[in-house]
């Protein structure tokens, strides 16, 4: 159905007679004479001519729009990353040690980190969430503040200027969860540079780490994005349509990536592409020729300024190839795990919001919480949320310990996609009509929670 070509991103055949391929209509739809007349009338009604003739009050137009007329720009001409280091294996932190005991208590360091981030989420992130959703952008002050609490360097080895002394997947999971209790969209915006820094730390060569990581451990942390998704139905990250061809002393990339966080601001991308039949990661600097960023506002996560990254004959040097094919697969998994943690955080936000609401809201002379149909919905949110949390923690702890975790991550993803969405739905339902309006944040969480199971990449633990 949809096309992935660079020239025509998602332009589908369209004619007056055939309605399909636009506006959510399938190709099976046909226009009859009345339909044709209505379609023509609609075109006139939406024409700018009416406005220029003063026939209609000019309506406000936002810059960042859902239509194809949204912005389209070249990649951010950011800093140059001075080459350094050698093409040998980079610095690696060791796996965490297992005590052999079942334990649900975070380590002291993890708890401290989660507390700090949780406070940040409540005091800085949550108050900024509604405006950021409207603006489709994260406020600069919040992004700056997120650097101060060390978000980008959580997964970077201590020896390279970061704070990780061992594999930080569990700490990362707790941080993602805590931040998402504030707002998922802003969390994704703030965590995106850290995803790239973590990828460089986990799979980078000495040269890649020496070239790119200093930017993330310094004061001016660049916007950066881990771009794995593509805008096709049934997208399978293990077989990306974006391709890389070895050419000369490097590679040439072609394709379209979607769900790219703050694409227009990003100075560095880690992009998934197929090379010789295997999925691989490539480091792409935003200043490269052939890069176009298109705004791609979506149902939710609006504060993350989701974009498409269009790669047309983008030439990169040999240094661009990050890790091997199995590292790519790990990247997909660890990213899915990070999304699960975000789902748990947002699910907790829903639970914490509806709990006092149903006790205060009265109907038929008593709080609606006194009715089992309402109370049981809240109970089920609590039960499923804790299940999501434990399954996610188990996967994260296995990753931290260096144990195989593909099964656990897959199960966490299935559970969080399914049950997380249900929590979003029930959150709105419990507030009734009030849940449907933007006066309350539950409608935003509902939209955000649909991202789980849809998004690949963007965040990483």
């Amino acid at each position, binding site marked *: 159905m949809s096309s992935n070509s660079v020239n025509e991103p998602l332009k589908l055949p369209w004619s007056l007679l055939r309605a399909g391929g636009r506006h959510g209509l399938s190709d099976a739809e046909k226009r009859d004479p009345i339909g044709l007349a209505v379609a023509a009338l609609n075109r006139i009604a939406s024409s700018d001519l009416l406005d220029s003739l003063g026939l209609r009050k000019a309506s406000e137009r936002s810059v960042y729009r859902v239509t194809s007329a949204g912005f389209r720009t070249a990649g951010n001409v950011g800093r140059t990353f001075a080459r350094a280091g050698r093409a040998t294996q980079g610095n690696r932190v060791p796996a965490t040690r*297992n005590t052999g005991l*079942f334990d649900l208590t975070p380590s002291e360091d993890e708890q401290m980190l989660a507390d700090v981030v949780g406070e940040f989420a409540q005091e800085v992130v949550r108050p900024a969430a509604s405006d950021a959703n409207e603006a489709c952008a994260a406020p600069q002050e919040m992004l700056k503040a997120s650097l101060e609490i060390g978000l980008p360097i959580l997964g970077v080895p201590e020896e390279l200027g970061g704070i990780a002394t061992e594999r930080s997947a569990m700490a990362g999971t707790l941080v993602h969860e805590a931040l998402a209790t504030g707002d998922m969209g802003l969390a994704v915006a703030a965590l995106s540079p850290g995803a790239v820094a973590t990828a460089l730390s986990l799979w980078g060569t000495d040269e890649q780490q020496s070239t790119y990581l200093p930017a993330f451990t310094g004061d001016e942390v660049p916007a950066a994005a881990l771009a794995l998704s593509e805008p096709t139905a049934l*997208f399978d990250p293990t077989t990306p349509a974006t391709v890389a061809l070895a050419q000369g002393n490097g590679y040439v990339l072609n394709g379209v990536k979607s769900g790219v966080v703050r694409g227009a601001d990003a100075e560095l991308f880690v992009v998934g592409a197929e090379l010789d039949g295997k999925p691989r990661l490539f480091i792409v600097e935003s200043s490269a020729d052939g890069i176009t960023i298109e705004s791609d506002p979506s149902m939710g996560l609006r504060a993350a300024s989701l974009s498409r990254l269009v790669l047309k004959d983008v030439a990169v040097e040999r240094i661009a190839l990050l890790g091997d094919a199995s590292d790519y697969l790990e990247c997909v998994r660890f990213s899915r795990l990070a999304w699960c943690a975000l789902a748990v955080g947002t699910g907790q936000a829903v639970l914490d919001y509806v709990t006092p609401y149903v006790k205060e809201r009265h109907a038929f002379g008593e709080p609606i919480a006194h009715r*089992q149909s309402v109370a*049981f919905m809240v109970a089920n949110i609590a*039960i499923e949320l*804790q299940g999501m949390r434990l399954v996610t923690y188990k996967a994260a702890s*296995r990753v931290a310990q260096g144990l195989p975790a593909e099964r656990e991550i897959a199960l966490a993803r299935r*559970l969080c996609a*399914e049950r997380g969405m249900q929590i979003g739905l029930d959150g709105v339902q419990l507030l009734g009509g009030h849940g449907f309006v933007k006066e309350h944040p539950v409608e935003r969480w509902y939209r955000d929670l649909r991202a789980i199971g849809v998004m690949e990449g963007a965040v990483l633990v």
Partner: protein
Amino acid sequence: MINLETPKKIRPLVDQAHQVAMNMLRPISRKYDEAEHSYPKELDMLAAMIDGISESGATGGAGAAGVRRDEKPEEKKGNKNGANLASVLSIMEMCWGDVGLLLSMPRQGLGNSAIASVANDEQQERFAGTWAAMAITEPGTGSDSANIQTTARKDGDEYVLNGEKIYVTSGDRADSVVVWATLDKSLGRSAIKSFVVKKDNPGMRVERLEHKLGIRASDTAVIMFTDCRVPAEDLLGSPEIDTKQGFAGAMATFDNTRPLVAAMAVGCARASLDLTREILTEAGVVIDYDKPAFSQSAAAATFLQLEADWEAAYLLTLQSAWMADNRKPNSMQASMAKAKAGRMGSDVTLRCVELAGTFGYSEVELLEKWGRDSKILDIFEGTQQIQQLIVARRVLGLSSAELK
């Protein structure tokens, strides 16, 4: 440090339980499903073996053993993995073998759990080694166990019990029955006490055995108490009616037994998942953990969903047991585990029958049996709805008067 793997020191016990389940329970599973009400004599040998293991200190309880929070302060500080975790993990394995047979295990009755939970030290010693069934439910009283009609009247050094109890698991086979009765109906739930009644008591009579949908290896009795005289020292715990403490004492048993029942559902469902995975694999279905579920066959996608729900129930169960081991109040978590495991158990076992088609529906295999056995686990020790009620009250901070 967060770690949700099976504890190293409990792994040998789990392996042992798995071998017992595989080599002792599975071979007789269908036999006693068909021969309802006949005593699984094989279990006597097994019980003797388990006793031997327990005495040697090699296990922390291999069956539905009692779980107890010691009053004595622990010497060891920090994270504990103790009898509660060991119990749920071994019960999962045994129920992977057969839920009905696990429930029929001599000296491992739910009454033993009650004794372990509320009896004083002297009683613990006196009742050690007894096989105790549990009698709570009455014809007119199911989930609202505070509404018990069976009476206990003090007469000298004895209590005199009168009433009818139903759904008493192992009620015919056990050595004794822990009976819940009220000392004074007008004082409500705080007057409800439990009594250990020995099998040879002439005032106690097993009326009949039920014919059931599942767990047919386990006998389920209707028991009549007619002027049944019980020594006063066989009242478990304190004879005082403490209106402040209310129902809490009696209900404390449930905090300990609910994780066990959740573990039963987890074990039974895993039996279904294990077999179904093999059946699907033989049928050419590939279950891939990395590929999106929607890009796989519907059967594989369904399986992934079931396994994800199973994993959640499994970990909620371990959480509630771990909290008990570490003496954290776990009433809500126990109910969460029971609610999730109960509904997961039905969903998983019934879906697995569906996935396996008429092969799964047939008595040739055990899938259909697990589809029947699992249902009771969402009912006894508090139905799905009771668990939701408990969780809701806790989460919302509402009393039982506010949220009825």
